[in-house]
């Protein structure tokens, strides 16, 4: 598989450039919405929808948007799509809307979406940006699901709200709380790093370049702050 093929764009987000476990983006919603499998799945799909739409639109407008106002433009576009997703979920999936609560609106400031807009969509074609959105969205969803399965099954003794015999009587309560979430998060990062040993991108290959503040950051530009 060629490094820059469409297929590689699609699948890289699943493991090699997984936004949660490799790029370590979107940690806040990851910890907050992975107490239940249903909540994690809903958050993953909502973020994926916003990611695909914003990637497509930003890619479409990449030659129109002036460089100096690109970040405000990206934020407006992302916030608009988040609000649209919110409205549709409120109308057609009210239970999931209530379940996700404030974290749905906070997709606007999810680093994965702004990061992909800056790192990929602003430099690639619409089709490839859409594929990147799908890949990263799936990667985000899979990461949330893997964490949620561990936390809900062993922490609450259930899967998607259905109690699991035996396990429900021997739960590890801390897994449903924030410290347990961080513990699972760390263990999964360790597992993914072990799995992709030598293949995952090094920090320098996505660190400063992919940062939305790269143009203004002293450590990137070498310029002294005024």
């Amino acid at each position: 598989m060629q490094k820059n093929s469409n297929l590689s764009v699609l699948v890289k987000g699943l493991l090699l450039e997984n936004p949660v476990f490799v790029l370590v983006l979107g940690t806040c919603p990851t910890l907050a919405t992975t107490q239940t499998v249903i909540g994690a799945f809903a958050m993953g799909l909502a973020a994926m929808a916003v990611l695909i739409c914003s990637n497509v639109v930003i890619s479409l407008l990449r030659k129109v948007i002036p460089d100096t106002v690109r970040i405000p433009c990206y934020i407006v576009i992302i916030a608009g799509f988040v609000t649209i997703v919110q409205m549709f979920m409120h109308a057609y999936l009210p239970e999931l809307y209530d379940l996700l609560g404030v974290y749905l609106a906070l997709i606007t400031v999810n680093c994965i979406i702004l990061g992909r807009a800056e790192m990929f969509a602003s430099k690639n074609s619409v089709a490839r940006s859409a594929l990147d959105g799908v890949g990263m969205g799936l990667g985000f969803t899979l990461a949330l699901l893997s964490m949620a399965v561990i936390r809900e099954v062993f922490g609450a003794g259930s899967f998607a709200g259905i109690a699991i015999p035996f396990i429900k009587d021997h739960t590890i309560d801390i897994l449903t709380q924030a410290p347990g979430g961080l513990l699972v998060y760390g263990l999964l990062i360790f597992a993914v790093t072990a799995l992709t040993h030598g293949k995952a991108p090094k920090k320098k290959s996505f660190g400063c370049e992919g940062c939305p503040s790269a143009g203004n950051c002293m450590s990137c530009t070498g310029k002294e702050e005024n």
Partner: protein
Amino acid sequence: MNKYVKSIIALTAICAAVALLLSATNMLTAPIIEKNESAAANEALLVVMPEGEDFTLMDISSYTLPETVTEVYAESTGGYVVKLTTAGYSTGMVIMCGVDATGTVTGATCLASNETLGAEKTYGEKTVGKTVADIDTVDTVASMTKTTEAYRNAVKDALNAAVILGGGSVDLRSEEEILKDNLSAVLPAAEGAFTPWFMVEELEGVSAVYVADNGSGVVFRKGEEFVLDEALSAVVVGSKTEEMDTSAYELHSSVTKVEKSSGGNYVVEIKASGFGINGDKYYDPSGEPILLRASVTPAGKIIACETLQQSETEGIGSACADPSFYTQFNGKDETNYKEIDAISGATLTTNGYKTAVGRIFETVKILEGVA
């Protein structure tokens, strides 16, 4: 310059496009969201009105409803679901009550409360099928009298609210207000300021006496009627009591004061052991026994009885300070004073009170020299 203009135009155009997209989405989803929210609200209302079809939140600002009523939903077939906030043992007891078109309770449930014993969780079931005419027949729960009484009164308020909203009229005055209005109607010159007079003389057919604070007269309650009576007024105005020196008598240690009226009757003030009665000794965890007084004829018949102070358990034994309890002793003598209704959940308080009343009879016999 061009660079800035281009930036402004681009950002403005993107904002405008996003705003348009959002307004279009809102137009599409807003009716569905409203419908969903209405269905969710209806679901809560259906708990207390299972036969209900469609509910609409009413504007109740133009109605004079009981103070406990906070929200009213009109049901399409003529009933109402009333949301009330009342206070039981503590404040903040929120009750939802359904009243159908015939004025019958279809259901009542407690949405929130800070009560300690939990009676409010199931008490609503007892009120189902009741109307404004028979809601008072629902018994309160022993040891949770205050909570359940507040609950029953709230349901009564819901029934009254339904009557008012349906175009009827209900007397929403409190018992105190009704009494004040009745007294003022008989004696307007008193300008609504009366003080109950503790009856130390026997007045034929009179159950209560109210003296105008400005000295304009005395009103007597005879049965359900409030009347002026010059002859009886003269007795009341002329009646005086004088404290007796009881050192020559061997009275029970719980007797704190004895007075004799100008009509020859005794007024005995006595301490009663409340919660935690222990034979003849006082045992009161709060350190404050009940203090009561009774006026008694020399023949040993109670003219009037009242509780002066108490520190019994709030909502349980504290009912001994309620006139509905202590006025039961009026007209009783040594042979029948125990035939009174006990306070629900406060048997020890009731027994302590009865024991003290029994000692009042003994005191009068000693003072009359017949013991």
